[in-house]
């Protein structure tokens, strides 16, 4: 029975390794040179381990079978053999050196962030990713777009359940892109298996990494470092496109950003703000304060029928602009633009029966942010 198990185990492993790409049982080969190198290292060390394992377990199970007490085996009297011991110390060292050399080369390559064509700042936030294309004036938040009805089992789950976002990170292929990674609150970890990039985002510090994608496509990943309640719900989607397509996309985003910036100075109607505020609320606020503003006390206070919030507009705006230190409420000063903040403040003051009629203007928010 034991030996059967013993043979089954490696057989399963080998079968698993071979079927890997088809079934998603193994590490993806990925779409960058580095991801391929890593896959190569992974498979090499794996087969080395399998070989050693077969040898060691082979001897072991042979002994267990052959030298059974019940079959009258008599124990031999031998112990300590210096040359054997030297051998089984030296051979593993050589194998390890053999592994360390290619691993070192790959690692050095991974650390070389010089001569990048594009710098992208990746900022982890509870619980979303923010992407800023440095020097391009393009920045946006990327939230999970899987509806909570699916998570709760109230709706059928889609193909990319939990691995879909409202705005993917768009990157050009064949160009070296440097990532600057940081966080606004706790440590997150940005991981896309197909790109073989996993890097922690440390609040207050910046980590560097880089990627050069060989094939266009949509690559999905997740936050890999426990970062609080919704750690499981901050996916990453990278949309790798041809270079000219990327340039068009970037130009569009710049244009849109300029439009939005102009929106700060004009007067907004209540309806307009409400319409703009609802998606912002759903994307940013609802994961803690819940869909109907009912909150989840004591950690996350209710916003609906919150007397203090309705009575004191300045206090309300201050909470959103500057956050509440020592709690999970972050400062949205740099995450949301003035239009978005004005809209979401307006929305929370008028949705769910609040009906204060306040239409908070982006210009007044912009002033507060400058302060």
């Amino acid at each position, binding site marked *: 029975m034991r030996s059967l198990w013993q043979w089954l185990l490696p057989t399963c492993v080998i079968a698993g390794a071979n079927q890997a790409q088809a079934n998603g049982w193994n590490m993806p080969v990925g779409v960058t040179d580095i991801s391929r190198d890593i896959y190569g290292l992974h498979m090499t060390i794996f087969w080395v381990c399998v070989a050693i394992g077969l040898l060691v377990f082979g001897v072991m199970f042979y002994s267990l079978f052959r030298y059974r007490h019940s079959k009258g085996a008599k124990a031999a009297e031998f112990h*300590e053999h*210096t040359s054997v*011991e*030297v051998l089984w*110390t030296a051979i593993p060292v050589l194998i390890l050196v053999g592994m360390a050399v290619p691993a*070192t080369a790959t690692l*050095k390559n991974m650390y070389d962030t010089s001569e990048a064509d594009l710098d992208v700042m990746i900022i982890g936030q509870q619980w979303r990713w923010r992407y800023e294309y440095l020097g391009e004036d393009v920045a946006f938040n990327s939230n999970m777009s899987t509806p909570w009805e699916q998570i709760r089992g109230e709706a059928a789950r889609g193909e990319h359940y939990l691995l879909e976002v409202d705005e993917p990170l768009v990157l050009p292929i064949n160009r070296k892109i440097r990532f600057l990674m940081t966080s606004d609150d706790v440590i997150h970890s940005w991981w896309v298996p197909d790109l073989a990039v996993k890097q922690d985002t440390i609040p207050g510090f910046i980590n560097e990494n880089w990627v050069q994608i060989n094939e266009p496509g949509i690559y999905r990943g997740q936050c890999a470092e426990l970062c609080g309640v919704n750690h499981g719900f901050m996916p990453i989607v990278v949309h790798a496109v041809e270079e000219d397509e990327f340039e068009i996309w970037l130009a569009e985003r710049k244009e849109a950003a300029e439009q939005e910036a102009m929106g700060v100075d004009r007067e907004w109607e209540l309806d307009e703000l409400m319409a703009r505020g609802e998606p912002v609320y759903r994307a940013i606020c609802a994961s803690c304060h819940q869909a109907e503003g009912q909150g989840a006390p004591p950690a996350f206070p209710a916003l609906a029928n919150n007397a203090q919030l309705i009575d004191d507009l300045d206090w309300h705006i201050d909470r959103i602009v500057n956050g509440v230190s020592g709690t999970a409420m972050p400062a949205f000063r740099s995450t949301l633009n003035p239009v978005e903040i004005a809209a979401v403040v307006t929305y929370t003051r008028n949705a769910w029966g609040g009906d204060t009629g306040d239409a908070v203007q982006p210009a007044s928010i912009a002033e507060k942010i400058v302060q």
Partner: protein
Amino acid sequence: MWSIIQSVLAALIGVQKDRKRQQDFASEKPLGFIVAAILVTLIFVLILILVANIAAG
């Protein structure tokens, strides 16, 4: 002195001749071995740091 270092190095890779070990444990003073072990360990760590730095270029 050399004998102590030899023993410590042998211990480092987990190999020691029986007779040599009997010899070592016959001497009642462990202090020499402890000092040598600490020194060898320090050198080992320094070598490792050096190798890492050279490899990092």
